[in-house]
């Protein structure tokens, strides 16, 4: 339990930040109003140009005006929506110090713990361990940074830190389907969370962040829970469950079904990069079972090699041997193996 004095000190700081936030809200409103006024001025200018173009029958100039007006008409609704957001919410009085103190006490009650750091100006709570669709994600620290409070409209003033991280297999910065780099994507809770912070309703803020963390939206996660524990293929990057991942003992990486094979000689599983096709039988074999023919240097599997010689070379050698044997037997039959041609020449000369 936090010391009462600490809580009062923190409540005071929150009040100061809320004043700054109010100021920054008006600044943002001014900025948006300036943008909107600029767009209206530009629209007026386009209108004048359009009038002049029509008077002079400058149709290409009129076409350009149409394009300009069209672009402005796309931008204006966005500006109007931003202005609405900033002007719609009633500008209530700032919460009293006692109210902010009560908020901190309520946070403490809701979460069972509250960490107030007056040096770093942070307020943190820790959620219970979260498991979504049987995927354990562990507990998270929700850390509100008062320094960033006044920048609420541009950056997230809080972080969601995994205390026992079990990040997605594909991206270690994603520690929760809706958290990336410690930033929560609030989705449906965006407006309510911002409103709670603007009004100093810290308890509502922390409980809403927790509600997002304990809910899974399968339509829009950074990484879907179905792919969470999957392994990544080293070659193509495809994520698949562990039972469909194969380890290559040569390069020592994991591969998916499509990027792996097995050696037809030794049955060892290996990746496509560590296997080769035998030039004779065309089977895929691993590096260990792939040899070179001593005669022609072609890559051949150990099953096809015989005395380190590929079947093609073996066949040629056998042919050569047969021919050699034939010649030897012929010369033996003639009885004069040294001068057969000479005798033939002699015959020719005689004729």
């Amino acid at each position, binding site marked *: 339990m936090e010391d009462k004095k600490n809580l009062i000190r923190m409540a005071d700081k929150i009040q100061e930040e809320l004043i700054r936030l109010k100021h920054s809200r008006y600044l943002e409103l001014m900025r948006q109003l300036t943008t909107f006024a600029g767009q209206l001025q530009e629209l007026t200018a386009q209108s004048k140009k359009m009038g002049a173009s029509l008077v002079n029958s400058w149709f290409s100039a009129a076409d350009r005006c149409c394009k300009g007006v069209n672009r402005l008409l796309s931008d204006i609704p966005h500006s109007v929506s931003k202005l609405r957001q900033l002007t719609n919410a009633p500008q209530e009085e700032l919460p009293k110090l006692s109210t902010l103190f*009560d908020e901190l006490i309520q946070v403490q009650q809701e979460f069972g713990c509250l960490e107030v750091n007056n040096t770093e100006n942070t307020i943190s709570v820790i959620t219970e361990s979260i498991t979504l669709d049987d995927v354990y994600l562990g507990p998270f620290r929700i850390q509100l940074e008062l320094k960033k409070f006044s920048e609420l409209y541009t950056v997230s003033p809080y972080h969601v830190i995994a205390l026992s991280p079990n990040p997605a297999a594909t991206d270690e910065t994603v520690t929760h389907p809706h958290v990336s780099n410690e930033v929560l*994507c609030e*989705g449906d809770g965006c*407006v309510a969370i911002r409103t709670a912070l603007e009004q100093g309703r810290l308890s509502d803020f922390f409980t809403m962040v927790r*509600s997002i963390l304990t809910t899974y939206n399968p339509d829009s996660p950074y990484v879907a829970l179905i792919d969470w524990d999957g392994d990544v293929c080293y070659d193509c990057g495809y994520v698949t469950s562990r039972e469909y991942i194969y380890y290559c003992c040569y390069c020592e990486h994991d591969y998916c079904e499509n990027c792996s094979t097995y050696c037809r000689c030794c049955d060892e599983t290996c990746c496509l990069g560590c296997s080769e096709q035998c030039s004779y039988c065309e089977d895929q074999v691993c590096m260990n079972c792939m040899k070179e023919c001593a005669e022609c240097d072609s890559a051949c599997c150990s099953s096809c090699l015989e005395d380190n010689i590929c079947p093609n070379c073996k066949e040629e050698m056998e042919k050569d041997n047969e021919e050699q044997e034939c010649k030897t037997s012929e010369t033996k039959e003639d009885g004069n193996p040294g001068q057969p041609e000479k005798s033939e020449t002699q015959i020719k000369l005689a004729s």
Partner: protein
Amino acid sequence: MRLLYINNDGGGFADFIDVTEDTTVEQFFKDQMRGSKPDDFLIRVNRQPVPREYVLKEGDRVTITPTKIEGAEI
């Protein structure tokens, strides 16, 4: 009688509203959150959890916060 109602569902507005005397928290929830289940919300009166038959009083602060909010990818 008037009470402060903070609805964190959707836009998250906070406003003073009028309710009839002897309204219980359960009835209040039914009236304000039509079609929603109380189990999906954290209901607090004056920052405290209360039983469903709790009768609301003038000036009470009622907070209704969903326990399931769908986050999204940016």
